[in-house]
């Protein structure tokens, strides 16, 4: 059986087989601006860029939903906003209210954060009820559920993904961008394995260039959440003029390397670091970066 770690070089190699145009990639991008200090000018630019690059979606805080709906009127661009963001610790009622209001304001997708504490308590009914409430409040609009995979072990990611599907949400999504780590190949692969083909898997957090984007798609993502959409599409031009087949050492792309003692549950940190002990790629592990 192939381990999640072994999926890293596989996905890295698979990127070479992908035959995607810049338009194909743009069609998967949730063009995201969830910074706490961006003002009207920047949100307008976000919408302008979405129109110019034909991104699938813009993803903003609830406060900006109406504004974006107005800016994007007459286009096919989807407007996503967030609920229970970024910690997922609001009560179910509040998350549902956020979702309902967002849809009223013009949102057509809702990205909610799962209640990770309840999940860690193994209170799976609460987790599912929390999700279901948002799905119902979203009135048919697709709901993506952020797991914040940096708080979870591989097994927990699989379990959480299954719960999301059982709760009839539409996407399982990796990260908020505010957590301990962004999207990684093993996590996205596990999410895809859990939910199966034809279901939504959104990779988000730390997708900074076209190689990152291609790796996430190769791992199983069909949606990319990133604030670097313009850079990704622009820089993808360079891929047309030469090969960029420099294989990465698996460690640089591995969640075990990204595990952060200060930002994640200590048990989860230890779990990831211990994966290195039996890793077939341990010889590649280098001290840098």
């Amino acid at each position, binding site marked *: 059986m192939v381990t999640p770690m072994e999926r890293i070089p596989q996905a890295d190699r698979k990127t070479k087989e992908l035959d995607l145009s810049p338009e194909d990639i743009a069609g998967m991008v949730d063009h995201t601006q969830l910074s706490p200090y961006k003002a009207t000018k920047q949100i307008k630019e976000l919408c302008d860029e979405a129109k110019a690059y034909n991104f699938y979606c813009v993803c903003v805080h609830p406060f900006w939903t109406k504004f974006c709906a107005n800016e994007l009127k007459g286009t096919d661009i989807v407007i996503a906003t967030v609920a229970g963001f970024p910690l997922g610790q609001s009560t179910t009622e509040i998350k549902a209210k956020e979702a309902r209001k967002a849809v009223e304001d013009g949102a057509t997708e809702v990205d909610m954060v799962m209640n990770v504490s309840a999940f860690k308590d193994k209170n799976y009914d609460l987790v599912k009820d929390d999700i279901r409430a948002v799905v119902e409040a979203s009135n048919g609009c697709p709901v993506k559920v952020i797991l914040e995979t940096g708080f979870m072990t591989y097994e927990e990611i699989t379990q959480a993904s299954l719960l999301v599907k059982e709760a009839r949400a539409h996407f399982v999504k990796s990260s908020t961008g505010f957590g301990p780590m962004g999207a990684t190949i093993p996590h996205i692969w596990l999410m895809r394995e859990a939910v199966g083909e034809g279901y939504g898997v959104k990779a988000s957090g730390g997708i900074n260039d*076209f190689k990152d984007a291609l790796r996430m798609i190769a791992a199983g993502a069909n949606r990319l959440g990133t604030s670097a959409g313009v850079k990704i599409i622009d*820089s993808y031009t360079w891929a047309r003029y030469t090969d960029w087949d420099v294989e990465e050492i698996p460690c640089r792309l591995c969640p075990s390397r990204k595990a952060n003692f200060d930002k994640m549950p200590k048990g989860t940190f230890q779990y990831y670091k211990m994966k290195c002990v039996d890793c077939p790629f341990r010889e590649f592990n*280098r001290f840098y970066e």
Partner: protein
Amino acid sequence: MILRINLSNGKISDENLDPQVKKEFLGGRGLGTKIIYDEVDPKVDPLSENNKLVFAVGPLTGTAAPTSGRFEVVSKSPLTGAICDSNCGGQMAPQIKWQGYDAIIIEGKSKSPVYVWVKDKKGEIRDASNLWGNDVEETTKKLVEETDKRAQVACIGPAGERLVKFACIMNDEHRAAGRGGLGAVMGSKNLKALVVQGTGPTAVANKEKFMEVVKHCLMTIDKNPLTKDALKIFGTNALVSIINEVGIFPTHNYQFGHFDEADGICGPKYIERIFVKPYACFGCPIGCGRMTRVDGEVGGGPEFETVWAFGATCGVSRLEDIAKANYACNRLGMDTISMGSTIACAMELSKKGYIKEKINFGDSAKMLELTKLTGLKEGFGNELAEGSKRLAEKYGHPEIAMQVKGMEMPAYDPRGAQGHGLGYATSSRGACHLRAYMIGPEVLGVPALIDRFKAEGKVKIVKLFQDVSAAVDSLSLCRFTSFALTVDEYAALLSAATGVDYSSKEFIKVGERVWNLERLFNMKAGYGKKDDTVPRRILDEPLKEGNSRGRVLELGKMLPDYYKARGWDSEGAPTKEKLSELGL
């Protein structure tokens, strides 16, 4: 149109530029290279009457295209003996273009000091006896007063007059055509300055389309984190912490890759201690230049490379001392990279007892003193003025000189960035970080992050970067635009401005053509495979500390594949097929 000025016989003439040459070489570096290749014997003494100096601008110069204010000076370098183009910002380039000139060729040698004044499409050779001996600042001020207050001056300082091998040509007092010693070529011709004044703007073929592309380019530059934030806020010095952190910040003459005192010279510290205001060259939306103040003196710079050259590699961590050495170089007219690196070479020679002079790493007073002595060619400065290669060879230790083809290596240790190292080794003008800025993908993640320690897979990327860089230099745009723009945007700007339809691939082909022509010149000048290398230290001595420790440059893994990718034979000579394909 070309303005040709012969300083030997005083003849000044206008010549039409062959449209085919313009199409195939664009302008700037490409045009200058073509002229030097056609007109200068590669074996000529660079400081003789028979060498020529070309000031060239590009098809976008003086237009609304972002960073359209750069010019190239091309000649045979006295530092390397290879062909050399040196790129300069400031405010001068549009003044040349606005008079309709694509290039100004300076040839021959004047019997006495002169300057050239170009206005209203007329060139004039004027006496400069009263200016000889003046520094760059004095010369610039006097010439503006003597000609026109709107005139722009590109001049040499005392270092160029004295033929210091890395003397540069200065515009706007503190912007330099810095590398390769082209200021000495000016000095050898008794030419103190080129002064120009024109009236814009440059006409473009398809104005509506051009402005549409310009608008898109400006938006893209304004979105890119490097051009929008890092370079704007910190200038180029934003790089100090990044490069030091990855362990490729050459320290004590490349003996180490990590400078323990880098926090004293990093971007934030720079703002706190010496920054006054930013400086932007003509048409630049980025404004990476820095004006600084030390002890009441206001000057330009230091930029990142200079902070390294007078900082880490000399073991100096006081920004004020680094800035003072930079100011001295500006006034004397010297390349700060070569100056700092040559002093660092002397420091290591001294430390190892190979020379009798006592020059210690970290001795900033001595560093400043040696800088001034070099510019004036006095005392030990006479030896430093020859550059690190000749200095180290003289004392029997060529391995101490951190140079390629005679040009000092800049502020990135290639042991921790394999592709960048291949770029140094194969660079047409000697060690140069700008020929293939692989620090982009290998460290900064532009356009995408790749494993900096891997030699495998780098060759084709290096070739692409070299070709695109040569093409961008032939547009005479600033290289910083390529953090944000791609070949598609450059080709679109060029097509709209000239009315000639260039595809992105054709644009890259221009760069490849220039690169091969430079190679041909250099081979005729005596360069070949044996010179496509780096100092032994980089190949054999692993870095001992920092985040690139244990690494050496694996050049042998890359060079044969690089020649293949270029369509060159195993000795690094362009094949007939390749030359034919490029129309050379």
